[in-house]
């Protein structure tokens, strides 16, 4: 290398560092919000409808209302391919752009971001995924996990099982199988299920699926055939779900006894099983379909104008609507933060306060066109989840329908476990910061 090239290199390097150092100045009248997405890779089947729903709701708010209280939201996706390593790059990128919120969209990515966010003071919204223990606001002031945690989901599954059998006392001696992705996400419900199993006298059988074998579940289903569980709970994601539905049919497992976590409730997941998938169930906390003013507004202001990435017939599918719900929480939290601080353009620290005072009640749901779309959710200083209600959805062969009433999680069982786990997390991670953020007066 001669001197000239070296100097050129040095100059180039200096230029690049300078470029990176200048964080994009936040426009005066906009709020920047970074969302991880995975429209590519093995989990894209679930990632695409969610990303579309999130993107379209924000686009609708910008188009219909001109943003939140006149402030436009700049929504930017960062592609992770469901890869935790890439999600960290996305986190750093979001941080450098002064995002008001980090939306990790995978449990692995959430786990990786939690310690960072507490130092960088960026709130994390992991909607019904991520670390269940983070529902404890005292130890995790920067993480929010509304409306439910995976532990609530597991307890909801147990309640559903009891409802089907005719009472909690009928659980004794029954066998519940848990098919789960062998990853942080899949393992989340295990402690609660084991705890409840001990209390109610049923047995839990674990059926882990390695990511490499998502589409190769033959031997797992043989084990299920041998063990004959009474119910199966599927904590699956991506290509694992359609395969599980197909295998259940293939192995003559009664499909109506197979219940997926809310993430196993994609339309494509059930559709893969063909007509025999009728009766497949999934926990849910949002409604499917387009029969809601909010979805109609999205169609009118975004989809029909050609500004959506989603094909029109997929608007209103279950995971699409889940994305809409997530963006609704973001927008409502921004609104709350604006009200609390009196500022229009808020920062990440304001957003944390907004999330902590988030209260989407029945009246508010009606105002935003979501009556019957979901149940009210209220977050407080200590309770960062709300432990709201869920229901059991059933696939009728073409679409998801509401099969059960709203089920409340076994909060009395779950909450102490969450607090214990949160304390444990803080103790195991030496130097975990003590909460210094004050609680709002209202919460």
């Amino acid at each position, binding site marked *: 290398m001669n001197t000239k090239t070296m100097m050129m290199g040095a100059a180039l390097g200096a230029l690049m560092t300078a470029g990176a150092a200048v964080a994009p100045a936040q426009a005066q009248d906009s709020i920047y919000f970074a969302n991880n997405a995975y429209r*590519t*890779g093995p989990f894209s*089947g679930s990632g695409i409808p969610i990303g579309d729903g999130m993107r379209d709701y924000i686009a609708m708010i910008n188009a219909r209302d001109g943003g939140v209280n006149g402030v436009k939201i700049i929504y930017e996706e960062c592609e992770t391919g469901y890869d935790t390593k890439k999600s960290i790059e996305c986190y750093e990128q979001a941080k450098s752009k002064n995002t008001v919120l980090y939306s990790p969209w995978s449990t692995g990515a959430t786990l990786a971001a939690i310690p960072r966010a507490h130092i960088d003071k960026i709130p994390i919204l992991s909607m019904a995924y991520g670390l269940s223990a983070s529902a404890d606001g005292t130890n995790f002031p920067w993480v929010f996990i509304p409306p439910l945690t995976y532990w609530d989901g597991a307890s909801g599954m147990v309640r559903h099982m009891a409802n089907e059998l005719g009472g909690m006392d009928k659980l004794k001696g029954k066998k519940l199988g848990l098919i789960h992705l062998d990853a942080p996400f899949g393992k989340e419900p295990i402690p609660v299920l084991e705890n409840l199993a001990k209390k109610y006298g049923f047995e839990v059988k674990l059926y882990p699926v390695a990511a490499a074998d998502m*589409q*190769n579940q033959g031997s797992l289903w043989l084990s299920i055939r041998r063990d004959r569980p009474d119910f199966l709970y599927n904590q699956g994601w991506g290509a694992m779900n*359609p395969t599980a539905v197909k295998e259940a049919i293939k192995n*003559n497992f009664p499909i109506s006894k197979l219940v997926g976590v809310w993430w196993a409730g994609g339309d494509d997941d059930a*559709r*893969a099983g063909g007509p025999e998938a009728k009766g497949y169930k999934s926990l849910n906390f949002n409604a499917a379909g387009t029969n809601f003013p909010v979805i109609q507004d999205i169609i009118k202001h975004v989809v029909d104008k050609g500004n959506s990435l989603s094909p029109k017939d997929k608007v209103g599918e279950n995971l699409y609507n889940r994305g809409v719900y997530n963006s609704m929480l973001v927008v409502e939290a921004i609104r709350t933060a604006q009200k609390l601080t009196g500022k229009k353009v808020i920062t990440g620290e304001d957003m944390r306060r907004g999330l902590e005072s988030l209260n989407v009640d029945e009246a508010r749901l009606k105002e935003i066109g979501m009556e019957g779309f979901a149940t009210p959710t209220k977050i407080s200083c200590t309770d960062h989840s709300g432990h709201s209600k869920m229901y059991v959805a059933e696939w009728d062969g073409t679409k998801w329908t509401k099969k059960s009433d709203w089920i409340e999680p076994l909060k009395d069982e779950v909450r102490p476990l969450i607090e214990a786990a949160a304390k444990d997390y803080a103790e195991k991670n030496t130097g975990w910061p003590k909460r210094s953020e004050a609680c709002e007066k209202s919460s």
Partner: protein
Amino acid sequence: MTDIAARPAPRLFANPWIKAALITAAIVLAAIVGARLDGSGTLYKIVIDPFQQMVSAPDLLAQTIWEGLVSGVLYALIALGFVLIFKASGVFNFAQGIMVVFSALTLVGLYEMGVPAFLAVILTLGVMFLLAVTIERVVLRPLVNQPDIILFMATFGITYFLIGFGESVFGGNPKRMITEQLYLPSGSIDLKILGGLVSLQKIDIAAAIIASIMIAALGLFFQYTRIGRALRAVADSHKAALSVGISLNQIWVIVWFTAGIVALITGIMWGARSDVSFALEIVALKALPVLILGGFTSIPGAIIGGLIIGIGEKMGEFYWGPLIGGGIESWLAYFIALGFLLFRPQGLFGDKIIERI
């Protein structure tokens, strides 16, 4: 019982197979004796209980072996794609997995555009041929006579190109394989035998038959035709093959096209069992332990290796998996392969490479 192994018998030990068999027998015998003494402890669960289960529920055993057989044949098919290219260009084709996805996506994508199913198959084959020609022109030809590692890295490039290209053309949404339109059977044959139910999926039977025919046809083609001989010449030495007038370019196109056909069939079969999405790419990596076991250069090796891995991992997962919490299948395959490698480092049918320094 261990004294059988301990007895000095140098001549017998010269044969690695006998050595392996004796050591295994000794371990098994010791374990059984141990388990008898152990009662119902861990050792009992490892060496006695699974076999009792096999005897008491022969229908499940038959089902497990059948599942293993089907996966084994499909693994063999994927492995074959690797072996063909390895023989012709001495390179491990990292892009084989994405070729499976790409061909299946092309097929389903064309069908969705309104092309009749069988025409879509023919058009997909055309696309795979075009891909083979392009890869030969753009990637392989400029790299001729470069070290193998360069070609290997080039296949990474092909992988990333095909991922991006496939996603931009067909999108990342999972699609359903057009099984019925291709007249592939669905449903199952339920045999009431062995005191239980053994259910054979018709699609699995079809997969096993089609894969076997493919494997046999390819084996014969490369063994007995002029092109097959040319391929083997190329495999031995690019330079020598060129010097006797074999067209390296032509051979490469043929081999990559054949790998493309294998990829398409793999894609149809795996796609029918699950769905067609980019997750199928991972399935192709299931061929790695098969290749380690069977040797990178041997077609029979790919077949036998596939069957051993397929049956071995299903049996292992089903009977021994629960002991350590299940989900052992993915690494068990490598374990089986490594076990064989201890005694045959070149793989079951691989060529013994003797290099003198």
